[in-house]
């Protein structure tokens, strides 16, 4: 979701006036964001946006508030909002990362989200912000999705980034599952087959 799209969506909710004021306050004073970031969820609404069920007005507002922080303040503020945030606030940070241009400073946040047992956070960590992750961490994240039954469609640029070591990890998992009489999710199997065909890797599927 681009910031422009989020802004258009927010323009359609009745609480848009609250957002405009909140955004102006954050631009004028980055200290204001702590409280406004927490309140945005209930002030803007926690229901799904029409045509964008993955988004609520509150989450769209939070992402735009993060983008309103002055560039030189972002690195410190965004990290603070993540570490002191509830899961919805942390999700908003992860969704905003691709637009915030924090570079390496975003990595510890994404890695933290990948360590959780919360499917929402794990999925968001493998979205566009995962471009910052090194290959080993990223592969662990993808395999974790298979374990947590998070659909692999959440993984940004999966086809492009999936490599031989990932195929080997998935192949190993497929063998374990076969031995236990358990199935691999169809999307993981499809990925494994695609990689195996491309690289001539022989997967022993069950």
């Amino acid at each position: 979701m681009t910031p422009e799209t989020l802004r258009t969506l927010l323009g359609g909710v009745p609480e848009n006036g609250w957002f405009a004021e909140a955004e102006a306050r954050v631009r004028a004073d980055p200290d204001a964001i702590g409280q406004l970031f927490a309140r945005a969820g209930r002030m803007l609404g926690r229901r799904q946006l029409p045509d964008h069920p993955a988004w609520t007005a509150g989450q769209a507002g939070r992402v735009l508030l993060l983008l309103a922080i002055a560039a030189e303040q972002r690195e410190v503020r965004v990290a603070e909002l993540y570490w002191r945030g509830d899961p919805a606030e942390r999700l908003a940070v992860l969704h905003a990362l691709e637009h915030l241009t924090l570079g390496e400073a975003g990595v510890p946040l994404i890695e933290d989200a990948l360590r959780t047992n919360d499917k929402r956070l794990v999925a968001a960590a493998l979205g566009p912000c995962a471009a910052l992750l090194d290959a080993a961490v990223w592969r662990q994240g993808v395999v974790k999705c298979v374990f947590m039954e998070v659909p692999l469609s959440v993984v940004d640029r999966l086809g492009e980034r999936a490599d031989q070591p990932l195929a080997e990890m998935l192949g190993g998992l497929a063998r374990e599952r076969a031995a236990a009489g358990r199935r691999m999710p169809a999307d993981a199997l499809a990925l494994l087959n695609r990689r195996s065909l491309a690289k001539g890797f022989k997967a022993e599927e069950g």
Partner: protein
Amino acid sequence: MRVFDPHIHMTSRTTDDYRRMAAAGVRSVVEPAFWLGQPRTNPGSFGDYFDSLLGWEPYRASQYGVRHHATLALNPKEANDPRCKGVLDLLPHYLEKDGVVAVGEIGYDSMTPAEDEAFAAQLDLAREFGLPALVHTPHRDKAAGTRRTLDVVAASGIEPGRVAVDHLNEVTVAAVKDSGCWTGFSIYPETKMSPPRMVSILQEYGIERVLVNSAADWGHSDPLLTVATGQAMLDAGFSADDVDRVLWRNPIEFYAQSGRLDLSELPEPEATFAGSSVKRGGS
């Protein structure tokens, strides 16, 4: 029967409890921050605990079809440890969070000056953040503790309708009822209050401004005693609508005063509500 348990410490319970609760009709719970059995020695431990009450625990509950909100506070027992005083400085940050529907549990444990101070300060926080307050009454010297509690509530200037005074019994209910505060009852397997005694209290004092909870925690307690109380009410001649009022609508009315209670996306009420059990063709 649909049930909202307004006071239960799910952190201390297993996923089996969530399954049993959901199967018995418990769809929504409020978990007050309290003493964990092992004393904490620094505010950071509370911060992590509060994060878990707003993060992991609601997520865990959601996987079993139960909606979870929290009340946050420095509990009376640990208010006596000077090392925990910094928790009061952490609270303003946490009281802004969406999942927080009251300040609590606050109140008295041993009625010390440190408890006086933490209690009053946290009632002020409740007013400042537009939140109701959940007040625990002491186990020892309960009658005196409850009187003193009501005095402190009155002195704070918080509206009585935004305060629930919990763990009441036959001796303490009348004064709380007269004060205009909500009356809370914790139904326990042996101590505190039993379903039959609760029914007698409802018969005598009515079903308005009453909260019935299991207060289940790491001690001998039972998260299904709210449901058992609803059944005891029905057996005693209360209507299904009375039960729904006490076990569902009352807690919603109390916590909705926070403006943060989110019960969207909960499954439709069971078709047995208010006697319309044939709504779905007997399925």
